[in-house]
């Protein structure tokens, strides 16, 4: 009897085919972003997220079946002509300098959003991204560990003119998620919600009338430079923009 039980325990729990997503359990997040209306730790419902950022190979397969997202055909309201996928050799060729396993970059928010919708998913919201990115290989929240912070910051301070590594080359975090830090920056569904827009950063009358109600943003943990840099970067972007180190992954 005991041996039957032992045998049962050896059966893998995951019965479904692996499609690249991993389930992240419910929990709470003390976000680095402090909103006036939301000071308490926030509840994060369980969700699924892609283990690794979307690769060139995956995005190429998408534009093959969705020609309106090929760089030669995309509408200029959805992606910047001359930037969007500009590192690929052609609309449907990666070319010698671009590896299939590298994360796709030079994609607009609209394109990332469309990719996720096409696979029945969505972009993660900022809180979900931050919740996952707070983990290291052993802990769900490693953010107070100075060594962890230094490791993350080291990437942000290294020059970004090196070719991008392939995804999932370094150890996954405790959820099984790769590359939250150290490879590319990532779009979130609500990147524009942070309202740390250029208008707010400049001193020219921060026109309160622009906003319906309160809810201003400040940064809670000023030691968390790495996340602050992400917030500053994302909040400076428009949905049509793309950059050489900004990719994405999907959630659902």
């Amino acid at each position, binding site marked *: 009897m005991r041996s039957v039980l032992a045998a049962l325990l050896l059966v893998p729990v995951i019965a479904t085919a692996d499609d690249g997503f991993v389930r992240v359990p419910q929990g709470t997040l003390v976000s680095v972003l402090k909103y006036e209306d939301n000071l308490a730790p926030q509840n994060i419902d369980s969700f699924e997220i892609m283990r690794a950022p979307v690769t060139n190979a995956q995005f190429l397969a998408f534009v093959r079946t969705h020609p309106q997202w090929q760089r030669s055909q995309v509408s200029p309201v959805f992606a910047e002509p001359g930037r969007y996928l500009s590192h690929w050799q052609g609309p449907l060729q990666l070319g010698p300098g671009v590896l299939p396993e590298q994360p796709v970059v030079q994609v607009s928010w609209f394109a990332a959003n469309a990719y996720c919708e096409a696979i029945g998913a969505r972009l993660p919201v900022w809180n979900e991204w931050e919740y996952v990115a707070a983990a290291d290989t052993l802990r769900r929240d490693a953010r107070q560990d100075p060594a962890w912070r230094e490791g993350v910051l080291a990437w942000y301070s290294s020059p970004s003119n090196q070719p991008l590594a392939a995804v999932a080359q370094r150890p996954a975090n405790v959820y099984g998620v790769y590359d939250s830090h150290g490879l590319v920056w990532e779009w979130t569904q609500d990147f524009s919600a942070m309202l740390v827009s250029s208008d707010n950063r400049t001193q020219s009358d921060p026109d309160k009338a*622009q906003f*319906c*109600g309160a809810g201003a943003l400040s940064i809670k943990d000023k030691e968390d430079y790495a996340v602050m840099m992400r917030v500053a970067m994302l909040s400076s972007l428009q949905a049509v923009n793309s950059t050489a180190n900004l990719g994405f992954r999907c959630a659902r």
Partner: protein
Amino acid sequence: MKRMMLSLLLMLPLPVLATPPLAPESVLQINNRFTDQNGQDFVLASRRGNTQLVAMFYTSCRYVCPLIIDSAFGVERSLSADERRKLHVLLVSLDPARDTPEALMSVVAKRHIDTRRWTLARTDDAGVRVFAALIGTRYRKLSDGDFNHTSALVLLDAEGRVLARTETLGAIPDPEFLAKVKRALQQ
């Protein structure tokens, strides 16, 4: 002979009936389903053909959103009757959870809105995100269900291309923006 010509004609494709694709710069090309204050579904492409003002708002908003409606009224009042007839207005709700067609209709009644030219509409969450991104509205849902958002009136030409935008709101229209509205209506 006549009959043969006719049958030949019938075999030809009818280019007049086929709608040419929207201009690549048009923001009306998204496929998300919108619903107006009467509960009628539509896609944005159906609004092609008229110069229009677009903006985002939500019905329970107490501060800035009434100002957005005031601003569109302000533009209208500064136009001649002829110009006014040609200008359409589309207000899209940021709040699909609460803004049913009935809620939209209550704003129509309260603000005496002429629905021959104005449309108040809702779409789903995904539609809100894409439309807001297209017209450059940034927003965040607050914990009490209200929204933090930037406010702008955006001028679209008949193809749905963005011609101008203003964040100067109020009953007295932004003169530069108004000039662009008038110019667009002349075309």
